[in-house]
Each structure stands twice: as structure tokens, then as C-alpha cells.
């Protein structure tokens, strides 16, 4: 694995590609050019094999049995939690709650913290570029309880407009926002926003779904109270996500789902809750998935997250210059054009060709991009489009993949131009 990083810190993508079995699959007889990692990344053999190996040698339910197998399963499940905690700079493994995905992580906060702390008229501040996962849970509270939602606007370049930040935060109980837009790529000033929110007396939730997979993350530096992210976007399996939260919030929040595991004692008329983080993990958790996520974290650590970010940034810059260089005014890129200010997703419009049609034509060349509203309909309306085409990158993508995308766009032009 050490061989996958070259001496200058750049990733040896040709070697990395060999770690991902799916990249050998042919699509319509063509090499697979997977440019949809922001939706879900592919998995290296190490992750896939670790889950198979776990099922073949170790599986038993966790935190229950008093026998060797169950103890080893528990040890590996908790070891995965510790790996994730170290990966994001958490003070302790107990600050990491395993969830199904970011959506569940945010819903955990909106149900457990929100229902204990928000009443009619209380204010939650969001931004105009949130994923539905960070909109709908708060809209549900608005409809159920009459909380007030305020939105930080974005400008035409896809950056947050912070002129009215202090006034918008006045009296707010929570600021919940994305650290990296899944549509525009925009990186938001997390620390600045968190500090402003705290100064106003509000707590801070960060949707880090697109941030943790490609940025060295230190939750202490981010300054948030809650951070949600998910395994399947960072080389791990589906079905496992994480909520990191401060010990104070985890202790104070009531539980979310009720059931086994999350209790200390149950009587016919009452129950007491387990310690954190298990207080928030009702029922049998996704054990193999947690172990797979731990291995994904090992894989990313071996590459070095600074190298991962440098790779994403360089490839994003290459994509922006290649696409605009080849197609000029026929191609419009949404979001900041400076790769320094964005993550590895590039949403674009090409002529008047609908993203669905673009994606369909690109598929014939084995090029997979996302076409649609990216679960961000309010943002689509703000951009004045119904949908966008989006290419997104991971560690197994290289300039040849971007070139394949650029070449394939010419096919769409032939058909629809």
C-alpha cells in the first residue's frame, strides 16, 4: 500500500486502480470511467475482503455473548469505532455514534436533540445549498412544532453570502450547514460559521458527507457540536454512517431509537439508558459494515488525507480547465471555478442538452456521471435549472478519466446539437 503514494506525495493512480476490482468491469464493452463517487464511492478489495473474512471467521452479535467469537466480534466492531474516531480527531471513541448514513445522523439530532430543545418560534438556520438530508428533518420540525427556518443565501458563484450572518443567527438555537456542497463543490468556512453561531448562542451541526472523504478532518478544529458523515462515500460499505458529537451533547440528548443495546435496565414501567455512544445504537448494528469502514479508514490513512486532498484538487482543476478549454461558452460550470475553494465535484450544463440525455449518451462510452437534482431541489431553483450533470472524483480517477468525459460530450453534441 505504501507504493500507492509517489515520492512527491502524488497518488499512483495506476496502482490504486488495481485495488478496486470493479474498475475491471466493462460497460457496453468500454472501460469503466466512474465519475460518480460523490454519490457513492467504489470499494477497494481490502474493504470487501475484510467483510467477507469477518463473516467467515468471526461473526456473532456484539455486546451480548460471553464466548470467544462474540467477544472478538465486539472487539473488532469497537476497534472500527476507535479508528474512525482517530481519523476525525475525536477526543474519544465514545464520541462516535454509528448510524446508517448521514441522513440518519442528522435525523438523530433533529429527533433526539431537536425534540428536547426546540419549540414553536425557535430558530434553526440552514443554507440555500443544503442536501435534502439537512432540509427535510428541519422542515418536519417546522411542520410539527412551528419552528422558524432561516437560510443563509448563496451568490451566483455558489459561495455563501455572509453579510447578514450575525443578524440571521440572532436568537437561533442551531446552525446546520454543509461543509462541502454535493452539487457546487463549494467548501464553506466551517470554523468561521461555527464561531459565529456559538457567539450567538446557537449549536452547530455540520453535514460533512462530502468533506470527510477528501479532507483531513479534525472535529476539534471544525468547532462544531455535531458532525455527520457516511462510510459509503469514503471507500467503505453502504449502511454505515457516523454522527460525531461533543460529549456534553451526547450525554444531554435523550435517546433516538428505542430497543435492545441502548438500555441499561428495563422494567415494565420504565427504562434507563446505556452509556454513550451505545445509548444511540438501538438493535443489532451493522457489524461487518463498521469493520469494513475501519479498513476504508486504514486505506485512506495509508494514502494520507493531505495527499488525497491534493489529488482531488489537482484533478478538479484539470477537469475545470479541460471542460472549459474544449467547450468554451457551450459549457457552464456551477460553483466556484477555483479548485482551492471547492471539493472534487463538478456540476455543469452543456449547451441545452438535458443532463439525463447527457448521462445516457456518456454511458455508452462507459462514463458514469450523475444527472438530476442531487437531492438539492431548493438549490436547483436558486440556480434556475431543473437538473445538472455532475462529475465527481475519487482517488482512483486520473486525467484520462476526465479526458474520457470530455471526449464523450462530443457524442452528445452529435445527437442533440
Amino acid at each position, binding site marked *: 500500500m505504501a507504493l500507492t503514494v509517489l515520492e512527491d506525495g502524488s497518488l499512483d493512480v495506476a496502482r490504486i486502480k488495481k485495488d478496486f476490482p470493479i474498475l475491471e468491469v466493462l460497460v*457496453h464493452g468500454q472501460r469503466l470511467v466512474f465519475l460518480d463517487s460523490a454519490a457513492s464511492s467504489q470499494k477497494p478489495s481490502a474493504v470487501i475482503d475484510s467483510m467477507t473474512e469477518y463473516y467467515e471467521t468471526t461473526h456473532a452479535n456484539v455486546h451480548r455473548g460471553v464466548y470467544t467469537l462474540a467477544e472478538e466480534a465486539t472487539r473488532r466492531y469497537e476497534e472500527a469505532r476507535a479508528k474512525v474516531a482517530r481519523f476525525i480527531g475525536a477526543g474519544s471513541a465514545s464520541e462516535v455514534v454509528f448510524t446508517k448514513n448521514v441522513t440518519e445522523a442528522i435525523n438523530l439530532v433533529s429527533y433526539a436533540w431537536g425534540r428536547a430543545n426546540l419549540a414553536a418560534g425557535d430558530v434553526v438556520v440552514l443554507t440555500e445549498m443544503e442536501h435534502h438530508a439537512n432540509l427535510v428533518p428541519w422542515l418536519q420540525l417546522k411542520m410539527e412544532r412551528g419552528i422558524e427556518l432561516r437560510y443563509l443565501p448563496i451568490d451566483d458563484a455558489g459561495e455563501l453570502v455572509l453579510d447578514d450572518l450575525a443578524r440571521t443567527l440572532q436568537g437561533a438555537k442551531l446552525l446546520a450547514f454543509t461543509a462541502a456542497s454535493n452539487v457546487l463543490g463549494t467548501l464553506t468556512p466551517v470554523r468561521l460559521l461555527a464561531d459565529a453561531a456559538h457567539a450567538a448562542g446557537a449549536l452547530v451541526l455540520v453535514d460533512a458527507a462530502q468533506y470527510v472523504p477528501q479532507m483531513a478532518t479534525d472535529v476539534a478544529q471544525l468547532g462544531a457540536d455535531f458532525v455527520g458523515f457516511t462510510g459509503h462515500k469514503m471507500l467503505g460499505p453502504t449502511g454505515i454512517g457516523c454522527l460525531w458529537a461533543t460529549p456534553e451533547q451526547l450525554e444531554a440528548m435523550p435517546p433516538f431509537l428505542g430497543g435492545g443495546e441502548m438500555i441499561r435496565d428495563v422494567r415494565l414501567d420504565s427504562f434507563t439508558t446505556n452509556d454513550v455512544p451505545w445509548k444511540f445504537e438501538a438493535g443489532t448494528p451493522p457489524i461487518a459494515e463498521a469493520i469494513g469502514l475501519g479498513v476504508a479508514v486504514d486505506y485512506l490513512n495509508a494514502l494520507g488525507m493531505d495527499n488525497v486532498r491534493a489529488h482531488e484538487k489537482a484533478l478538479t482543476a484539470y477537469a475545470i480547465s479541460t471542460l472549459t478549454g474544449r467547450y468554451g461558452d457551450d459549457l457552464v460550470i456551477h460553483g466556484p471555478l477555483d479548485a482551492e475553494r471547492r471539493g472534487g465535484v463538478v456540476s455543469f450544463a452543456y449547451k441545452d442538452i438535458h443532463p*439525463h440525455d447527457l448521462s*445516457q449518451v456518456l454511458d455508452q462510452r462507459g462514463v458514469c456521471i450523475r444527472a*438530476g*437534482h442531487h437531492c438539492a431541489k431548493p438549490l436547483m431553483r436558486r440556480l434556475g435549472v*431543473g*437538473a445538472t450533470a455532475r462529475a465527481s472524483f475519487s482517488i482512483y480517477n486520473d486525467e484520462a478519466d476526465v479526458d474520457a468525459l470530455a471526449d464523450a460530450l462530443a457524442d452528445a453534441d*452529435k*445527437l442533440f446539437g
Partner: protein
Amino acid sequence: MNGLEDLYREIILDHYRNPRNRGELESPPAYRAEGFNPLCGDEIVIYIDVAADDRGVLRIADLRVNGQGCSISQSSASMMSGAIKGRTLPEARATIRAFKSMMSVHEARLDGDGEPGADAEAVAVKLGDLEALQGVVKFPVRIKCATLSWNTLIQALDEVETATA
């Protein structure tokens, strides 16, 4: 484009580039229905005017399509508008059934509308240009694109029938 000829037939591309009956009707009196494809964000708005003909039979006197979407959803809406305009309500329903049957998504209606013989009647309907959309069936994700305007039309017809019942 190898493999895509079945999907992007020339007549489909023609309706996409030059959509028929595009626009709005004043509502009311026109009936208006909106349809969304939650997968891709396509939105369609259908306006229909109904009027009794000289024999007193209600017909779809005018139909307009607004909204935005991909070539399949837009061309399907355009062709639909041509096939439906001037029809009586039962004729329009039969055309819808025939089209959805072609798209293999004709589901048994639970509200009693699926009486025996309905399918036979649907098959007898001449779909004409609309048959060009049959190739969409090979691309399952796109079937919802093709049926979006038709499902929206059903909503509009339901409104007409509720109002005129």
C-alpha cells in the same frame, strides 16, 4: 450512436427540438395539473380546456404543455398533446391506457376502472408516432420520463371529471 438508436429515434428528437402545443392556458377556466419526476427533477404542467361539441359531447378542445425535462419526457409530452387534442374524455383515457400498456406499466386499477375489455380496447387504439417511444422500455430508468406527462394528464382528466360529474 451505437445502442441508442432505439431510444433516440429521429421522430423523438424532432418533437424534442420542436415541441408541439407548448405553453399555457388561462386557468381557470382551463384545468391545470403538475407532475414531478422525483428522481431527476423534471417538472411538467398540463393545461386542458374542455368544451361540448355540437352533439353535446365533452371534448378536449385545447391542451398545452409547460415545464422542463429531458428529450424523452419532452417528446412524449409533445406527442401526447397531438394524440389527445380533440378527443372525448373516454377516447383520451383509452389512449392513455394504450400508451401505458406499451410502456409495460399498465397497472390494474383498484377503483373499478379496470373492467374486462378495457385492455382489448386499449390495444385497439392506434398510437401512431407514439410507438416510436416503445424503445424506451429497453432503458427502464427512462420509462418514468416517458410516462410523466401521461400521469399528469390523468390528474387533469380526474379534475375535469370531478368538476363536470
